[in-house]
């Protein structure tokens, strides 16, 4: 199936467009059915793509039939396909949850959601940096509109900050791209990786500035320390399905850092080898610290989740800073785990918030919930996974990160900070759970019972069940992660193969 690698972009694009046309645009019911169907198809396509890439190796989809590095290419390699599969699965969970009447807050929820998925998939699959920018903009403009979905003062205010910050980020991205094109004469990622080692003198200094400008942009997306202040407010004010899909957006930034700063400006980059690592190191460790402090200080469950997202972003940045194959492999595994669990916890926070009356998700005494057993079980699974306690996937992910540290100096920095952050998360989450589930006043008889909608139920269970499944199938999953890391760190596979291969197909 040579066209499989473009399907994760085309499917949501056409679904989103179709949803705006008459037979579907009229009723919410039809929109739900079509979106869910399309989402299931996307998951299938993404899984098929992962299997195909694992069996046959890297696939380059050449749009327009121009010989690379000219023209536009999509690159489906193990890393990008795993990320696409992760995105589509997360989207399916969030959409299931949205069918429980969370889609009534504003028009065009489903089309926007599809465009958001398209942007994220495109950012993962694209093979050149300018299209990375274009897909960033696609996913951003959809996220701007999704963030105000549901309305309300707090959301509007959070959106203003988010939009302005990201517009400035886009400008910096373009400055970085301009410098890259000016010095390298190409924007194809594989071609850039080949040309960077040849730079010397003033050109190398210019390219370094460009690389660090790109780091600022990706740092903004992935919530690296001084650029993370927007995240807690944005994520905690978004509606639940939107917050869940946002969980993968910080990972887009980390994926881009892995692609650009670990491959193009990696070990083989001559004068510019590992130019960003000395910056990522301290910032990543401080991101973990600030995420832990934030988690301990959080007044409500949604803000706590948002701070845990920062914590996981910090852990992933440490992997990017370690810059070796084992670390990248750990990053892939941890990325899949932390995205799904964070998404599930955002959905769960909304369910809990709906059942506690006026107290919502704040850590205060409130009326007890109507479905305490189900919610508490889900919370326990999510909490154990996100803290990184055995037996769930967070534990395996963290062990992989700890094992990836090689020199004693790395171990001295990474081990204590990562383990203390787990302790911090454990304290924050056990405090949260105690208040939410054990300190409830009995509900009055005349209150109407809150029922969990079947869609909500499926969404939450799907995303949180991923954690035990990831632990159960840790073998195959870490094999995929290893192959992704091997591909990324072997230039003959991830760079040369893309440029020397003859024009295999004119995919159009």
């Amino acid at each position, binding site marked *: 199936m040579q066209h499989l690698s473009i399907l994760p972009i085309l499917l949501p694009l056409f679904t989103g467009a179709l949803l705006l046309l008459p037979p579907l645009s009229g009723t919410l019911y039809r929109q739900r059915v079509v979106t869910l169907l399309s989402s299931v198809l996307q998951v299938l396509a993404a899984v098929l793509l992962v299997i195909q890439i694992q069996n046959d190796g890297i696939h380059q989809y050449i749009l327009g039939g121009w010989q690379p590095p000219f023209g536009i290419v999509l690159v489906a390699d193990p890393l990008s396909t795993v990320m696409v599969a992760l995105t589509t699965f997360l989207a399916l969970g969030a959409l299931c949850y949205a069918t429980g009447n969370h889609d009534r807050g504003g028009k065009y929820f489903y089309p926007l959601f599809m465009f958001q998925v398209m942007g994220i998939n495109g950012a993962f699959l694209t093979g050149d940096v*300018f299209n990375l920018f274009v897909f960033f903009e696609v996913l951003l403009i959809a996220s701007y509109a999704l963030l105000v979905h549901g309305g309300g003062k707090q959301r*509007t*205010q959070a959106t*203003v900050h988010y939009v302005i910050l990201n*517009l400035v980020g886009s400008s910096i991205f373009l400055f970085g*791209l301009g410098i890259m094109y*000016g010095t390298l004469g190409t924007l194809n990622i594989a071609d850039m990786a080949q040309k960077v080692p040849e730079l010397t003198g003033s050109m190398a200094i210019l390219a370094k500035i460009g690389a660090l400008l790109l780091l600022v942009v990706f740092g903004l997306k992935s919530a690296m320390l001084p650029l993370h202040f927007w995240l807690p407010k944005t994520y905690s004010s978004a509606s639940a399905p939107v917050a869940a899909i946002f969980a993968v957006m910080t990972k887009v930034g980390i994926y881009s850092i892995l692609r650009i700063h670990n491959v193009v400006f990696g070990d083989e980059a001559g004068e510019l080898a590992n130019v960003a690592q000395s910056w990522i190191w301290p910032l990543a460790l401080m991101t973990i610290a600030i995420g832990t402090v934030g988690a301990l200080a959080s007044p409500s469950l949604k803000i706590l989740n948002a701070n845990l997202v920062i914590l996981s972003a910090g852990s992933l940045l440490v992997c990017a800073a370690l810059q070796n194959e084992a670390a990248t492999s750990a990053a892939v595994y941890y990325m899949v785990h932390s995205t799904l669990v964070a998404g599930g916890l955002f959905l769960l926070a909304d369910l809990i918030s709906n059942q506690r009356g006026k107290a919502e998700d704040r850590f205060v005494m409130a009326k007890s919930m109507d479905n305490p057993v189900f919610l508490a079980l889900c919370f326990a699974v999510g909490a154990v996974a996100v803290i990184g306690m055995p037996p769930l996937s967070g534990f395996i992910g963290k062990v992989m990160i700890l094992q990836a540290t090689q020199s004693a100096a790395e171990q001295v920095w990474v081990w204590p900070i990562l383990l203390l952050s787990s302790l911090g998360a454990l304290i924050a989450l056990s405090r949260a759970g105690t208040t939410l589930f054990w300190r409830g006043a009995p509900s009055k008889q005349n209150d109407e019972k809150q029922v969990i909608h079947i869609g909500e139920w499926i969404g939450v269970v799907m995303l949180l069940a991923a954690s035990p499944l990831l632990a159960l199938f840790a073998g195959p999953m870490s094999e995929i992660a290893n192959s992704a890391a091997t591909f990324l760190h072997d230039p003959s596979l991830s760079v040369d193969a893309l440029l020397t291969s003859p024009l295999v197909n004119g995919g159009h």
Partner: protein
Amino acid sequence: MEGVYAFCVGVMTACGIFLTLRGRTFPVVVGLTLLSYAVNLFLFASGRLKLEAAAVLGMSDSYGDPLPQALVLTAIVIGFAMTAFAVILAMRARADLGNDHVDGRIPKTPVEQRQKSGGQR
């Protein structure tokens, strides 16, 4: 030519950054617009500035690089759309929050702060 060009891009970026740091949404939107103009000029210059160089092979001795022009075109379109969205959002924020400050509340002037603390004493 290069000097004047670089100076213009630099001044525009500086003005853009200054305006985006202001407290009200209108100057911020103008600042974002200036920034995107500066970015467009900068991208255009990444293909090197040349005179009398056609972007088509065989039409002149030296030829201009067509790719930055394509990139600038894309950047202009995206910049327009984003600016339009920022304007609409600013108007909605003005309606929802009752003022046009980026933080959604009117900051107290030093005089007011002094009066408040004086009243408590």
